[in-house]
């Protein structure tokens, strides 16, 4: 984290979706607590990975940052400017700097528009006229993302999933953003294509200095891509740390369980590490457990966990910037640290 104002500063971010029901008058009978009090920062050019299992609020977080959803509470600042409840007009200058890459490359491109029109769309909306015209800029962008500029007049249905995702990346780059929220950009792709797209995103991040919020459930991809990683569970961040810290020294039991579940591809003489099996299902976000939300599945839970929600703090033995929300953090010797083959190569 830089000492100056971070690019994106999120504090206490909360999103509760109301559940309507009842007859004859429909009223709110409960809330899905999709995201419940997130605090994190993203610095210039930094990549923050957001991991967690399905339904933990990762995507909701991404949509809150890009203001596709209205936060229930909390604050989102971009370059020190509060954009939490900004309306469309107020957001206009920020829009071009925060862009998004979507999960489903089949749904995220309008099937009736040509590639050229899709990528030029953001420039048209924001009335940006690059030197040499929009078409030239679109061709440049197509080249940056590794597509043939001649494909300008083609329609999305003529491309494969990986190519479509490249078009999505080109569209996000069209406005020269400073921050890209990538919502599971590779999870819908074939494994062999995943690596290509991740490498493309990495190239973009390094060469253009764009900050990323990289949402994924694949720990290996996040490790490859992100300098900092936040682990989410049921709408809360349970642990956030620099990449090597988190993967090398996970302090939260949930992080450790997640890491232990990553399949190992290496075969060597050391005995297989212990696999932590979590019992039961993720509790419902409509009525989350009291205290620590992970306690219902945690093997160390005590009375304290049920009554007192653990704060996200730098627990004893953590490096600066490594925050863990746990009353009984793991230590290196309790469970052997899981190994991960470092840079995943395309499995072709």
């Amino acid at each position, binding site marked *: 984290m830089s000492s100056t104002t971070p690019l994106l500063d999120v504090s206490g971010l909360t999103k509760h979706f109301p559940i309507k029901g009842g007859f004859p008058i429909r009223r709110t009978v409960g809330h899905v607590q999709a995201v419940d009090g997130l605090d994190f920062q993203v610095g210039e050019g930094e990549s923050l990975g957001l991991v967690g299992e399905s339904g933990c609020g990762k995507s909701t977080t991404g949509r809150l940052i890009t203001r596709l959803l209205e936060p229930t509470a909390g604050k989102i600042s971009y370059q020190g400017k509060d954009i939490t409840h900004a309306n469309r007009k107020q957001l*206009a200058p920020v829009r071009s700097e925060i862009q*998004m890459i979507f999960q489903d490359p089949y749904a995220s491109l309008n099937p009736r528009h040509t590639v050229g029109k899709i990528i030029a769309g953001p420039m048209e909306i924001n009335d940006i006229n690059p030197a040499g015209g929009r078409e030239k800029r679109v061709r440049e962008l197509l080249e940056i993302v590794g597509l043939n500029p001649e494909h300008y007049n083609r329609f999305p249905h003529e491309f*494969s999933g990986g190519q479509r995702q490249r078009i999505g990346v080109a569209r996000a780059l069209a406005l020269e953003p400073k921050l890209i929220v990538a919502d599971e950009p590779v999870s819908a792709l074939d494994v062999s294509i995943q690596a290509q797209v991740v490498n493309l995103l990495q190239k973009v991040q390094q060469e253009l200095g764009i900050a990323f919020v990289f949402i994924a459930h694949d720990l290996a991809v996040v490790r490859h891509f992100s300098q900092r990683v936040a682990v989410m569970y049921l709408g809360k961040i349970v642990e956030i740390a620099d990449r090597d810290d988190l993967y090398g020294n996970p302090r939260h039991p949930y992080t450790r369980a997640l890491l232990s579940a990553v399949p190992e591809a290496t075969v060597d003489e050391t005995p297989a590490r212990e696999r932590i099996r979590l019992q039961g299902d993720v509790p419902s976000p409509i009525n989350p457990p009291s205290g620590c939300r992970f306690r219902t599945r945690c093997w160390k839970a005590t009375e304290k966990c049920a009554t007192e929600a653990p704060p996200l703090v730098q627990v004893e033995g953590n490096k600066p910037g490594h925050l863990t929300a746990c009353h009984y953090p793991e230590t290196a010797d309790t469970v052997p640290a899981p190994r991960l083959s470092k840079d995943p190569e395309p499995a072709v």
Partner: protein
Amino acid sequence: MTPPTPSAAAPLEVTDESVEKSITSPAPSANESKSPGQLAWRRFKRDRTGVAAACIVIFFFVIALCAPLIAKLYGKDPYTTYGLSTPGLLGDNGLPVKPNGGIDGEFWFGIEPGLGRDLFTFLLYGIRNSLLIATAITLLVVIIGVTLGVTAGYLGGKTDWLIGRVIDILLAFPSQLFFVAFTPVVLALFVGADENTPVWLTVVCLVGLLTVFGWASIARLLRGQVLALREREFVEAAKVTGASPARIIFKELLPNLWTPILIQATLSVPAMVTTEAGLAFLGVGIQDPTPDWGVMIGQAAQVYQDDITFLLFPGVSMVIFVLAFNLLGDSVRDALDPKTKR
């Protein structure tokens, strides 16, 4: 890092026709790419039933548009009572003297029993008026239906609730009964009891009533389509770049809605033609001296036991038209939506 080669993933295609294309041309150039519209047109041209139906429909529209020209070349008009002015055409019982309803070289489709009007031009002008009314209603229905349906679907909330309830009421209404019962009431609002109803007023009234009851079904259909589309990620992508709701509706959503709109419109025209004819037959639509498909069938039904050819021409032509238009509607749907295979 190694720059990934774009060609590696090229042959992975999604839709059937693109697979076909990638087989025929492994390295297609940029000029060869086809829009969904062009692909639909190509599929349509391969559908023989559809092309034949389209030809018939176009033929009907052409003769309807050219009715005055044809009548001029033919040398007759639908209003002159030839049977009364020229002796020898109608017998003492009012029926044409010549067999088959008086068909001969001069009166191609015969003459009308009683008044002796020329049936060929009467049918031409009847088709012209009926198609004019049906097309006008369809246009209005589509415009109103699309606007309200898309608005309801995209905005949701209270707007959606309000429009949805109005649609429910309109669809639950026995509209045919309403037309029969209320057309005279509506006309009476504008015309005194002792005056004649001007033709334009009848037409406006007819178009208005059928439009009021016609837009509901297309609005409901489009509302559903928009509900499905607005959650798609490309709409979110447009929002992220700061697109206005108007831009999202017209530039992002509407191009994806042309398929249902076109299908609904092509199915609506024949429905309106038959409804309009039905009302004319029942005596609440267009009235006698004005040529109209329904009026003609109504007149013919009174004398069909003596002069079946009078009924045959308007009846058969309407069956052909409605059938062709419905087949055209089916073909348009098949061409636009390749996934609905029958």
